[in-house]
């Protein structure tokens, strides 16, 4: 989606602000927000792409006014409601008691180390499907404007680049965000001259690389 999260190349956000002492969390609730999101995700009711879409699919006013972990909590609440795991009444009151979708799994404390270290690899068996493009091929990114989730940033649409590497056959984010868990495609690292993306303001010779699934690309 052409949403407020799609930040590459936007102006007006000001300078970078590194913090000298930089705590990992700036309040205890942030740590709980991270852990709740990870634990609830481990129940298996949504994909990482669905959770990204639940966070990013917001008005610019809302998105920019929320802090990072506030967006996580807002996204988590939306997923829990959308998947029927809690009701609006329960969320408002904080009290459980309504008939809802039962969780598929509960992450137990003794499983945490194993589950975190296993992660969730997204590479899939291509089942004989061969990549259309090879390293060095010139490609043009498609001019896609989907209302749903996509991982093709708007600054890199309808641009000419070349294949820098074939990254494997991976779950396709756009489809996975719609709940289509089986959808997968070839993924490529595509390199662009910075001037192709940003014009002559960019330094000659500088480059930007994105990872792009095959449906984002056409030969040129």
């Amino acid at each position, binding site marked *: 989606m052409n949403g407020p999260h799609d930040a590459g190349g936007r102006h007006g956000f000001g300078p970078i602000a590194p913090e000298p002492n930089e705590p*990992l969390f700036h309040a205890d609730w942030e740590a709980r927000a991270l*852990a709740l999101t990870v634990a609830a995700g481990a129940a298996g009711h949504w994909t990482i792409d669905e959770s990204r879409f639940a966070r990013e699919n917001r008005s610019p006013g809302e998105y920019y006014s929320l802090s990072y972990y506030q967006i996580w909590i807002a996204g*988590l*609440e939306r997923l829990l409601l959308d998947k029927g795991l809690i009701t609006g009444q329960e969320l408002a009151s*904080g009290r*459980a008691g309504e008939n809802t979708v039962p969780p598929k799994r509960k992450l137990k*404390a003794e499983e945490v180390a194993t589950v975190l270290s296993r992660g969730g690899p997204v590479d899939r068996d291509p089942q004989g499907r061969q990549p259309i493009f090879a390293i060095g091929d010139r490609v043009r990114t498609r001019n896609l404007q989907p209302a749903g989730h996509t991982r093709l940033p708007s600054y890199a649409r309808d641009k000419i680049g070349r294949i820098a*590497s074939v990254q494997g056959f*991976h779950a396709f984010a756009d489809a996975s965000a719609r709940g289509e868990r089986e959808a997968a495609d070839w993924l490529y690292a595509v390199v662009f001259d910075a001037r192709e993306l940003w014009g002559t303001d960019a330094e000659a010779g500088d480059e930007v690389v994105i990872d792009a699934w095959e449906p984002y690309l056409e030969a040129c």
Partner: protein
Amino acid sequence: MPHDHDHGSELDDMTARVMALEKLLTDKGMVEPAALDRIIDTYENRIGPRNGAHVVALAWSDPGFRDWLERDATAAIHSLGYTGRQGEHLTAVFNTSERHNMVVCTLCSCYPWSLLGLPPVWYKSMPYRSRAVSEPRAVLKEFGVTLPEGTSVRVWDSTAEMRYLVIPMRPRGSDDMTVEELAGLVTRDSMIGTAILPDITTGEEVRA
């Protein structure tokens, strides 16, 4: 926001909201509070930039490992036990005097958790996400980095599940160091590409 709740029940809005959600999900049988504690402990105490620094030190000191890292960073890094969430698929990118690499996620906050821990706030912030791709040299300048003449910049936007680790240039004067000592030279920001490492003998930045 003040965050001193020892005296009673005056909770700020987010604390109250997250506590209520945790209790609700616990009561609904979806999460276990002890599991949440373990998740937080993992990211506060067990996973951090020293994992990435070890990878970099090996890349500097072991040509065989460096070669493996170049060919298949996922396998090379997983062989060290650095597996897991947000590190399932990895690529190592090597700085040279001709090319400086830096990493961003313009769409959210993708970052190699298994190697660097959780990202700093600035990495997740709109200023970094918006500017790293379009004006990387201005961003680097704000981090105090000026690249030598003739060094081009390649910015890696983490738009899928591939996670990137920058292998900074080995500081001059580090020839006799052990892997452990070398790892001690490596900073987190140098593995994101927003810092370069100083020369050991002179304290100057690494130059071509």
